[in-house]
C-alpha cells in the first residue's frame, strides 16, 4: 500500500488540468495512449459513467472520494488521474458533452438536467504513478469495484514492470498475489493467459471475424488453462507456464477458434463454458481430437473419450450417495406419501434397466438378485 492517504493532502484541481490515464488497466490495447475523447467513449460504453453523471450532476461530487493523481508522465501543466477515471470522465462530460463524437441522449439529458457541474475536483497528488498502483489492487481486484479478468491481468503486469521483484518467478507470483490478497497460482494463470492474448493479438486474432480483445472472454481462456490436458495440447507445461516456450501456435489458433469463433446462431464450437470439461477430454484423446478437428460436434467427439465412462461412474456414485442419505434419514420421516413410493419404484425400474444394459455390454450372466 502507498503511504496512508492524509486528508490534509487533498487539494482542488481544475477539471481541465486533469487527464485520463492512457495506461488504465481497464483499457483494451487499441485504446492505450489514446486521447481523452477516445477513452471517454470507451469508458461510457463499458463502465458506470452514465450513472456517475446522474449521481454527480444531481448530488455534487462526494469530497470523501478524492482522485489520485500524478504529474509523472503527464504533459506539462497536467495531472494524470491514475484512480478515478470514470468519475473524471463523468465530470468532463457534464461540462462538455461534445467530448463524445455522438453523445447519446442519456448523456445529453444528464448534462442538461444537472444541478452540479464541478469545474474542480478534490485530488491527492502522488510523486509517481507506481505509488498509486499498489492501492488499486485492493480496490479493483479484491474490493468493491472489480475489474474483469483481463483488466486484472494487465494491472498485475504493470505492477510487476514498475516494481522489479527479486527472486524466482514463482516467488514473484507470490509477492504479486500478496498485493491483491490472492493466490500465486491465480496470478500465474492470469499472466499466462495475458501472454497468450498478446500473441493472439499479434496474429491479428487469427483472422477470426468479429474477434478482438474486447470480445475475447479472457476468463474463459484462463479457465481453459485450468485443465492440464488443454495446457498439454497447447504445449504449455501447465497453467503457470507464462513464458510458453514450447507453445504450438497452430494449436493455439485452433483453441481460440473453438472458444470464440461464432458460427450458426452465434454459437461457438465450445458452446457454453461448462463444456470446457468435455473439450479437455477431447483434446487428450487422439481419435476424439481428430474427429472434433474434422468438424464433429463436441458432444459427439466426446464419445471417443473416456468421459462417458467417467460420467457414468460419477452418476452411479452420486446416486448411491443420495440413496445413503435417504436411508440415514428415513427413520426420522413422520409422514410418507404415495409419491415417495412412486419415486422408489422409478428408481427401482432404472436400476433394473441399467443393470440389464451393463450386463449385455459385459456379456455377463450375473443377475441383479431380488429387488
Amino acid at each position: 500500500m502507498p503511504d496512508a492517504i492524509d486528508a490534509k493532502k487533498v487539494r482542488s484541481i481544475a477539471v481541465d488540468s486533469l487527464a485520463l490515464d492512457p495506461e488504465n488497466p481497464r483499457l483494451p490495447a487499441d485504446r492505450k495512449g489514446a486521447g481523452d475523447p477516445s477513452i471517454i467513449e470507451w469508458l461510457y460504453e463499458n463502465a458506470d459513467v452514465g450513472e456517475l453523471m446522474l449521481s454527480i450532476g444531481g448530488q455534487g461530487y462526494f469530497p470523501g472520494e478524492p482522485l489520485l493523481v500524478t504529474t509523472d508522465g503527464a504533459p506539462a501543466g497536467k495531472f494524470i488521474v491514475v484512480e478515478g477515471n470514470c468519475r473524471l470522465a463523468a465530470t468532463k462530460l457534464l461540462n462538455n458533452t461534445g467530448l463524445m463524437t455522438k453523445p447519446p441522449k442519456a448523456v445529453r439529458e444528464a448534462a442538461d438536467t444537472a444541478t452540479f457541474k464541478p469545474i474542480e475536483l478534490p485530488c491527492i497528488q502522488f510523486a509517481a504513478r507506481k505509488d498509486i498502483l499498489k492501492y488499486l489492487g485492493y480496490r479493483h481486484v479484491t474490493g468493491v469495484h472489480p475489474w474483469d479478468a483481463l483488466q486484472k491481468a494487465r494491472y498485475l503486469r504493470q505492477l510487476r514492470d514498475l516494481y522489479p521483484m527479486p527472486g524466482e518467478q514463482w516467488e514473484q507470483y507470490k509477492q504479486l498475489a500478496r498485493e491483491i490478497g490472492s493466490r500465486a497460482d491465480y496470478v500465474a494463470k492470469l499472466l499466462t493467459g495475458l501472454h497468450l492474448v498478446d500473441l493472439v493479438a499479434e496474429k491479428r486474432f487469427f483472422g477470426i471475424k468479429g474477434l478482438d480483445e474486447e470480445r475475447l472472454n479472457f476468463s474463459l481462456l484462463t479457465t481453459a488453462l485450468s485443465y492440464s490436458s488443454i495446457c498439454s495440447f497447447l504445449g504449455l507445461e501447465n497453467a503457470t507456464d507464462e513464458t510458453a516456450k514450447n507453445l504450438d501456435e497452430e494449436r493455439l489458433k485452433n483453441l481460440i477458434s473453438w472458444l470464440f469463433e461464432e458460427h450458426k446462431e452465434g454459437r461457438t464450437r465450445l458452446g457454453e463454458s461448462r463444456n470446457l470439461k468435455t473439450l479437455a477430454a477431447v483434446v487428450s484423446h487422439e481419435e476424439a481430437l481428430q474427429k472434433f478437428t474434422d468438424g464433429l460436434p463436441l458432444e459427439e467427439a466426446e464419445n471417443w473419450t473416456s468421459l462417458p465412462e467417467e460420467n457414468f461412474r460419477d452418476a452411479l456414485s452420486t446416486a448411491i450417495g443420495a440413496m445413503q442419505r435417504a436411508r440415514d434419514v428415513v427413520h426420522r420421516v413422520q409422514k410418507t406419501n404415495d409419491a415417495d413410493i412412486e419415486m422408489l419404484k422409478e428408481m427401482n425400474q432404472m436400476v433394473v434397466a441399467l443393470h440389464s444394459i451393463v450386463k449385455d455390454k459385459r456379456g455377463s450372466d450375473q443377475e441383479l438378485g431380488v429387488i
Partner: protein
Amino acid sequence: MDQIANLDDSPERPWPYLWADFIEIVCLSTLDKVATAQTLRSGYLGQDVSGEDTELFDDADLDLANGADARPRRADKFERLIDDGFQHAEDRQRQFGNLYPFEVDKSARRLSLKTPLSEGNKLYVALLLSANHKYLPGQQHALTTGFEVISWHALKALLPTESDVRLAGTTHANSPIGIPSASSRKPDKLRGMVALARTGAEINDAQFWPNDTADEGADLFAVVPFGEPETAEEIIVLGQCATSNENWGPKQNDASPQKWAPLLGMPVPNMNFLFLAASPRQYGNKFERGVVRSGHAVWVDRQRILKRLNKLVERTATPASALMSTKVWDLVTKAVEASDIVAEHPTGHSQHTALV
C-alpha cells in the same frame, strides 16, 4: 416489500437458463431497464463470497487455507457464467420470438427491456417474476397462487373448449372455478373431485387427519367430458404448479396416476401435468440436461404456457391482465415501469432502483 431485492443471491448452478433469468431480473431492477456485464459486475458480484460455499463457488476453502481472498477468482467465474447467461438470453430471443420482452446484444453483453411491451411480453414478465420470487421478498405467496391462476388459463387453453378445468388448491376453495366441496377438509375436496369425474369412489374420512385441508399435491384438476352421464369420465388431468426456478423434482410425482387413480377410483390413469414458471431449456430448445425428469409428468414450462396463452390473447383480444391475479398484474406493471425511487446501491454508489 414489493421491490426487487436479494440480488446478491445469484444462481448456485451453472445452468445457463438460471443465469439468463438472473440477468433479466437485474435488468428489471434498474431505472433504465438495461443490464450490462458492468451492471452485474459492479452491483451484484461478490457481496459475500469469501465465506459461504455454494455448489457453484465451491473452492473457498483452498483460498482460506492459503490466507487468500476467494473473491478475485470467483469474480472470474461469475463473469464466465454471466457470458453464458447472455448467450442463453439470445437463444431465448430466437425461441420466444416476439414474445420475448427483452432485446439482447450478446457481443456488448447488454440486455434491455423492449418498449412498448405487447400483452405477450407482459405475460412473460409475470412468469419471470413467478419463477424468481426469491428476489421479491414477501411476495412469494402472491406469486405462487398467482401462477396457479396463469396455469389454469394455460390448461384451459390446452384442452378442448368443453373441458371442466378447476383450481384444486386450498387458496381457491371458494372460487367459482375451485373444486365444489362441502368444506375445506381434504376428504370433502376429494369427494368433489369424485363427483366431477363421476367415478363413484368412496372416500373414507378415517384415512385423513381431522383437520387436513391440504390439496394432496394437485393444484389443477380437469375433466375432458365424453358427455355420457351414465359412465365415469376417463380423460382426467391433474396438474402441479411449480414457481421455483429449480428443485421441483418431487413435485413431478404429486399428480401421478399411480397416486391419484386408486384414490379417486379412476378407470384409467390420469394425465400428470407439471406447470413451470421457469424456462429450463438449453441450446437447441431441449430441456436443460442438468434437471431431473421423473414421474412421467408432461412439462408445461414458460415457453409452452406463453405460446399457448398468446394464441388466446391474439385470437380473442384478451388482455394479459385478465390471465393473472390483480396482485401479479400489479407486480408486473411496477416491474416494467421506470421509477424515481433511489435506493442505496450495494457498491456504495446511489443507484436508481425500480419498484416492482
